[in-house]
């Protein structure tokens, strides 16, 4: 009786007359059977056992009908528009043959069609096949006796609207509700202003809700959200998350076109667009500001295109699950990314243009991750576009550029709006640091050997570690730890960097393979728990893709166990969890670096050694002089390494023009930097600066919540986000078109499936039922 499921109940095509006739026939049959039974028992008394049973039957039936009737009335009042068909039929197109064209439409299905949740497409031929055995068939009557009032209470695979478009594909494209993503970036100095347009299209014959889980940079200050329906553009409103979700759900149930943007992780977002009618297109524009990384004279802009498949430790339900397309609920996690299977490709593609304004002539520009075309407009302005041949969104887009002349110097930038004055201070290490030698090191390499690292990533990681081992100096010591389901290490304590020990470590390294889960916590415990040698600087180097769902737990553990160590996180892969890797380095007072599929692993490790071979400026302190500042982020000042500036952002509450003095410790004594401060009156308005400051404050509060049991922190995050109109874990953007209601129910939810990142093994990372 699965077909009696509320969400799938359908009114019979039979007329009321036929129904009444049938009911009368049934009543006669019941009466005649009852008479026979009573005759057999030889009793006609209603108080005898037979009569009792008969009465009970009647009463039970009466009560059952009453209960169901009352429930039905309630649900009809609340949700007569709620029924969610689980039928998806692609709209007829050139690719769909007559079999697909003759497939019943949604309207036709209740009469004689079979509910379809799966559509097979092989060699361009669409095939429809039933998924439930007990589904209404032609001529069969179904009498609606109840309708579920809340579709969400059903099992995940039977959720109203969870019907997923399925496809049997052999190297063919699958129609998806997400058609195209267009990204336009304007870079000026180290600030990127990014406009992302997501084009949703309903390729099916019935209404849908499109859901797309996608990445954005974790430091993105998302401040604009616009939904476009045809020519009309509706600006979304930032609201407290729960409130926004409620507004969206009501609008969805009432048939309004609505969209909702929520944050699942600082770098993972969910876009939901409700009530997209067949053949219609709805666009969503998202705008954000982002600060670029600056390393060794190069500015680096990154746009992530796909969320990598995350591993969630046993018992966790608030993680990010990786499931095969068409299998919602398979991971048991609150957020799920649906991945295309091997050989499949969605119709979704991406276009991207970056306009770089360097301020001074751009000397070099490179993009190793994608094929691009470039156009030099002026010596200081270059426009870069993604090549049409390389539009599959399956890896991070990384663009680097270097400007002419001397390396940048420490500087201060200020801006003012009606709320406050703001500043951003870039501290750049002095050149003197480059001429000094380094202390002996205690290097701990922690290698992620989980399933997501199998193949190319683990090979690259091993090559980098091998180079690192060979670069060790006689006074150094080292340790090699690997983790997947558990952690194991080369020895109980760090080994001296003798040639024999290095050879022994290399043999151990070559034996490692990628398989199993990512119990990173085990690796952290193993790396930070053993006794520290005070004669050496302990650097812990994590080599991982960061594909885990329990980031909070990991970062909290690092904070708790760090001690005197510094953490350097090395991202290995094509679509990394940069949020985790950046925060590991930030909490670990170290630095982060990324090794892409086209980078040289040995060179990558040599650069790292070049960096740590110079002493850092530690224990930084800032004297702001006559300038009055507040809420400067990050609050914990990191060490200053050669080639890597530190950027501080804060509010100016008053004061006058003065010198800012930065002091720090080096191996041979203290050091001081002086930075002139311009007055606020002289400053050019920087519209991005208030948003960037608010985003940093949100990140700082979120970081504090990892290790500080303060219940007010979420409220503080929410308030900052609302005041500055920014996305956060506690706020969301919602937009509703109130002018029009679409006909019919709220439609079927269709998650947009994405490819697994380039170089990631589908079999070892994606969960299938």
């Amino acid at each position, binding site marked *: 009786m699965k077909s009696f499921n509320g969400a799938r109940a359908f009114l019979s095509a039979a007329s009321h007359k036929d129904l009444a006739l049938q009911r009368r026939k049934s009543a006669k049959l019941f009466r005649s059977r009852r008479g026979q039974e009573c005759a057999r028992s030889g009793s006609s008394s209603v108080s005898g056992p037979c009569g009792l049973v008969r*009465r009970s039957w009647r009463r039970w039936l009466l009560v059952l009908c009453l209960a169901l009737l009352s429930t039905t009335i309630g649900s009809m009042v609340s949700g007569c528009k709620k029924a969610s068909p689980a039928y998806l039929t692609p709209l007829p197109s050139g690719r769909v043959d007559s079999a697909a064209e003759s497939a019943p439409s949604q309207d036709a299905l209740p009469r004689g069609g079979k509910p379809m949740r799966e559509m097979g497409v092989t060699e361009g031929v669409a095939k429809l096949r039933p998924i439930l055995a007990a589904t209404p068939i032609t001529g069969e009557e179904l009498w609606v006796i109840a309708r579920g*009032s809340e579709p969400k209470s059903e099992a995940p695979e039977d959720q109203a609207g969870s019907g997923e478009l399925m496809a049997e594909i052999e190297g063919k494209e699958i129609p998806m509700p997400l058609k195209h993503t267009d990204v336009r970036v304007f870079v000026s100095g180290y600030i990127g202003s990014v406009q992302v347009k997501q084009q949703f299209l309903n390729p099916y014959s019935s209404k849908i809700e499109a859901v797309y889980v996608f990445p954005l940079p974790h430091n993105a200050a998302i401040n604009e959200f616009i*939904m476009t329906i045809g020519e009309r553009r509706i600006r979304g409103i930032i609201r407290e998350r729960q409130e926004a979700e409620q507004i969206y759900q009501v609008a969805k149930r009432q048939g309004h076109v609505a969209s909702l943007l929520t944050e699942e992780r600082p770098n993972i977002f969910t876009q939901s667009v409700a009530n997209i009618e067949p053949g219609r297109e709805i666009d969503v524009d998202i705008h954000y500001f982002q600060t670029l990384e600056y390393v060794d004279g190069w500015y680096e802009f990154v746009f992530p295109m796909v969320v990598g498949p995350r591993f969630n430790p046993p018992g966790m339900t608030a993680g990010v699950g990786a499931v095969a397309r068409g299998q919602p609920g398979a991971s048991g996690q609150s957020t799920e990314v649906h991945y295309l299977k091997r050989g499949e490709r969605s119709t979704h593609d991406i276009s991207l243009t970056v306009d770089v304004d360097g301020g001074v002539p751009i000397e070099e520009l490179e993009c190793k991750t994608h094929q691009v075309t470039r156009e030099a407009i002026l010596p200081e302005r270059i426009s870069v576009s993604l090549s049409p041949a390389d539009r599959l969104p399956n890896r991070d887009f990384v663009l680097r550029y270097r400007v002419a002349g001397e390396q940048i110097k420490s500087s201060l930038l200020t801006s003012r709006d009606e709320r406050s004055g703001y500043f951003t201070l870039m501290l750049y290490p002095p050149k003197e640091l480059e001429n000094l030698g380094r202390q002996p090191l205690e290097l701990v390499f922690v290698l992620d050997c989980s399933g997501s690292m199998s193949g190319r990533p683990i090979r690259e990681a091993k090559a980098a570690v091998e180079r690192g081992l060979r670069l060790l100096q006689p006074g150094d010591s080292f340790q090699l730890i690997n983790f997947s389901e558990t952690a194991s290490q080369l020895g109980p304590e760090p080994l001296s960097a003798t040639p024999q020990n290095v050879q022994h470590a290399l043999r151990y390294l070559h034996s490692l393979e990628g398989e199993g889960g990512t119990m990173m916590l085990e690796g952290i415990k193993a790396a930070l728990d053993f006794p520290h040698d005070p004669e050496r600087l302990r650097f812990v180097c994590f080599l991982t893709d960061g594909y885990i769902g329990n980031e909070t737990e990991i970062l909290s553990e690092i904070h708790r166990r760090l001690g005197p160590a510094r953490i350097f996180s090395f991202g290995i892969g094509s679509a990394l969890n940069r949020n985790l890797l950046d925060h590991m380095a930030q909490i670990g007072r170290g630095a982060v670096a990324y090794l892409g599929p086209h980078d040289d692993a040995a060179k990558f490790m040599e650069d790292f050694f070049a960096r740590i071979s110079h002493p850092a400026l530690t224990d930084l302190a800032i004297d702001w002089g006559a300038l009055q500042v507040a809420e400067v982020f990050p609050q914990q000042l990191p060490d200053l390494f050669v080639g890597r500036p530190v950027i501080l952002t804060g509010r100016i509450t008053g004061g006058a023009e003065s010198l800012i003095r930065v002091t720090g410790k080096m191996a041979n004594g203290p050091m001081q930097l002086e930075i002139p401060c311009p007055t606020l009156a002289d400053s050019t308005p920087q519209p991005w600066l208030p948003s960037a400051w608010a985003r940093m404050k949100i990140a700082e509060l979120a970081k504090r919540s990892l290790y500080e049991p303060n219940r007010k922190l979420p409220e503080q995050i929410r308030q900052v986000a*609302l005041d500055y109109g920014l996305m956060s874990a506690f706020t969301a953007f919602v937009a509703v078109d*109130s002018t029009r209601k679409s006909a019919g129910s709220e439609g079927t939810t269709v998650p947009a499936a994405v490819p697994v990142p380039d170089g990631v093994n589908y079999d070892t990372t994606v969960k299938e039922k």
Partner: protein
Amino acid sequence: MRCLWAIFKLAGACSRWGLAGLKTCDTADRNVCATEAGVRAMRRGCLIVAAFFGLAAGLFAQETATEEGRVRFCAVDIYVDSKASPLAAYQLEFTVTNGVAKIVGIEGGEHVAFHEPPFYDPKAMQHERVILAAFNTGDQLPSGKTRVATIHLQVTNSLPLQCELKLQAAGNSAGARIAAEVSFEERKPE
């Protein structure tokens, strides 16, 4: 468990009510009659409990449904009448005064100069008060009465919507203030 215990007690009470039928039985049939009546009473009790829960569930669902049924979405069109002067910039304040509505979207106007959805002040938005501002420095500017924005609202109460609209500033392309009037109108649903 408490709920089960309550059901059990209720069923028991109903059984006692059912056992009242025993009084009418003859002495000879008393044992048989007692058994039958007891079973009947228990069943009657269970039936009543089941009916009670069924009705309660129905009523609860109806209540939720009624609450949601009261929620509706509507659009309010905002007009600026700059008379004969071309309108290049405006700033206005729209407030829902009786607290029955939430702003769920802001749409641009009918004229190409103000087609883009205007910006709003996020801080004011927290009190269902929206300060809208837009400007256009182009040559094609509207004059007379023009719809500059549409505000989409979720009305959460059956009370009539009460709004207030104040023009804070209107200007021409030279940056000078101009005299203008503002008005709003709830759009009829399609």
